[in-house]
């Protein structure tokens, strides 16, 4: 963390912090370019491309919920509520604006995030006085309230849904927002604010006794988590028609399943499980109605054999991963001595 070398570890190739950051940004940019190239060159069908966008916003949803559930250690069940707030805010913005897509889309998404952030604070303040099951119930209640209100408002299109939203969500954009989300949350966790959030998960009484304002950090972490749900909502809004019924309890539960399956407190786990759980139902379309059984079976098996989730609390850092590979190669070539320096 922070590029500080641990004592007694072999010297690494990317030992300076800046080279690690550069490496991470470069590889993310490369991956993005590759995906964009694939979509432009028509090597992938529109179906696959829409699936990739779907994976994108599901990753954002899972990673953001992981901040509240895995790092803060609370159990909110209303993530779909924040997603819908962000989705409607972003969609109404692009519908009313007449700007070039390159300009209006990022503003719309950011707006979705900000509005969801504000909702997160307003709902978090009363809700976070509770914990455990009670917090789950109250956040579930708030999400339902949001859904019912949207269902009955004029300007949101009501139950018929909000139509005619420009299809701005491309692979490239969803990749950018996934990158922003993961970057923001992992840098947050590796800072004094992140340590404060983790300490609340570990022991709230001790955190308070160490001078951490637990109320402040609970609300802030909850609101940041909500903000990125809003970002995901914004992405989702620009792929389809917005229907309030799509933001019900089942959506919240689906996101929570992704987080728990991937491992509470592991960003890598959230990314993997969001990807797998988005693709799986599509792959299983051949099984028709049996596919939900397979889906459920996968969940049950993982929970039996790896209750802490696929990755537990393990997280992956690209820099150190590549380092390890290089260190292994050097060790192979130079024998044991190559590692010692």
């Amino acid at each position, binding site marked *: 963390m*922070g590029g500080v070398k641990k*004592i007694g570890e072999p010297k690494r190739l990317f030992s300076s912090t800046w080279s690690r950051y550069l490496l991470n940004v470069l590889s993310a940019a490369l991956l993005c370019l590759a995906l964009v190239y694939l979509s432009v060159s028509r090597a992938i069908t529109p179906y696959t491309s829409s699936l990739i966008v779907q994976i994108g916003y599901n990753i954002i949803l899972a990673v953001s919920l992981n901040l509240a559930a895995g790092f803060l250690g609370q159990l909110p069940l209303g993530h779909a509520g924040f997603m819908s707030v962000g989705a409607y805010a972003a969609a109404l913005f692009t519908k009313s604006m007449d700007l070039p897509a390159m300009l209006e889309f990022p503003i719309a998404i950011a707006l979705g995030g900000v509005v969801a952030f504000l909702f997160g604070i307003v709902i978090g303040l009363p809700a976070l006085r509770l914990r455990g099951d009670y917090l789950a119930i109250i956040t579930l209640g708030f999400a339902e309230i949001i859904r019912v209100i949207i269902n009955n408002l004029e300007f949101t299109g009501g139950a018929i849904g909000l139509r005619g939203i420009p299809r701005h969500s491309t692979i490239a954009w969803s990749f950018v927002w996934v990158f922003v989300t993961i970057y923001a949350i992992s840098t947050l966790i590796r800072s*004094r604010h992140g340590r404060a959030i*983790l300490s609340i998960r570990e022991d709230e009484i001790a*955190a*308070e*006794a*160490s001078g*951490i304002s637990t109320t402040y950090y609970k609300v802030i972490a909850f609101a940041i988590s909500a903000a990125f749900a809003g970002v995901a909502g914004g992405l989702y809004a620009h792929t389809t028609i917005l229907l309030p019924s799509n933001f019900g309890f089942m959506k919240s539960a689906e996101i929570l399943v992704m987080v728990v399956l991937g491992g509470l407190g592991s960003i890598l786990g959230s990314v993997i499980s969001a990807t797998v759980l988005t693709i799986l139902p599509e792959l299983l379309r051949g099984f028709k109605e049996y596919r939900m059984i397979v889906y459920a079976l996968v969940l049950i098996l993982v929970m039996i054999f790896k209750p802490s989730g696929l990755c537990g609390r393990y997280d992956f850092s690209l820099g150190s991963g590549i380092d390890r590979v290089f260190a292994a190669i050097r060790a192979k070539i130079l024998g044991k001595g190559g590692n010692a320096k």
Partner: protein
Amino acid sequence: MTVLDIHNLGINFGGLQAVDEFNLAVESGEIVGLIGPNGAGKTTIFNLLTNVYKPSRGSIRLTDEDTLGKSTHAVAQSGIARTFQNIRLFKDMTVIDNVKVALHNGMRYTIAEAFFRMPRYWREERKARKTALELLDVLGMRDMADHTAGSLPYGAQRRLEIVRALATNPKVLLLDEPAAGMNPSETAELLPTLKDIRDRFGVAIILIEHDMSLVMNICERILVLNYGLIIAEGTPEEIKNNPVVIEAYLGQQRGE
């Protein structure tokens, strides 16, 4: 100079007077022992001082600052740090991160500065790491810095709690049974360590402890509590020979 001035402190839990008429003035750099049988109200006093419980009456002044209406984390920020009788570490975090959590309020950078990794972030993080390692060094834990706190042996966990409390830069340190569960040699090591901490940081220490060898050797003043009331106060010598204290601990002699 008086750092902590407690006047007529008391709390009721329903009909039970858990603590009553508790008066104590602690000088800076003083080590005060708080002893008494189980259930006498010793830990309750710590909880009152840190505002985990709201006192029913009385006043607490930390150098001229009234800490009574403050929340627990604000009390910690103004200079009262504590350890816990049943260890409360951040078990899944590393040793050094445990200390850094307590350094939180001494660090100055915003969430936005952390997002963008601004120069101040690096500067403050480097400084915090250095301070944390120095503090760990005081209790001989520097080489454990990167271990997970929960994996430490029991004695080390107790010491880490002390380091974490010190990291909030306290004026008064409340230690709740620091020697509980330690073996005799660990307890013996604790004695010079606590004196060292007092001298180095100039903190006043209030100590709850059942290990009499430790209490009698380290404390300049001892308060004995029973049923929430102070029954005796004095130097270790005076306390040892006080018949009221002996009675509270061992009961009355038959036929007396």
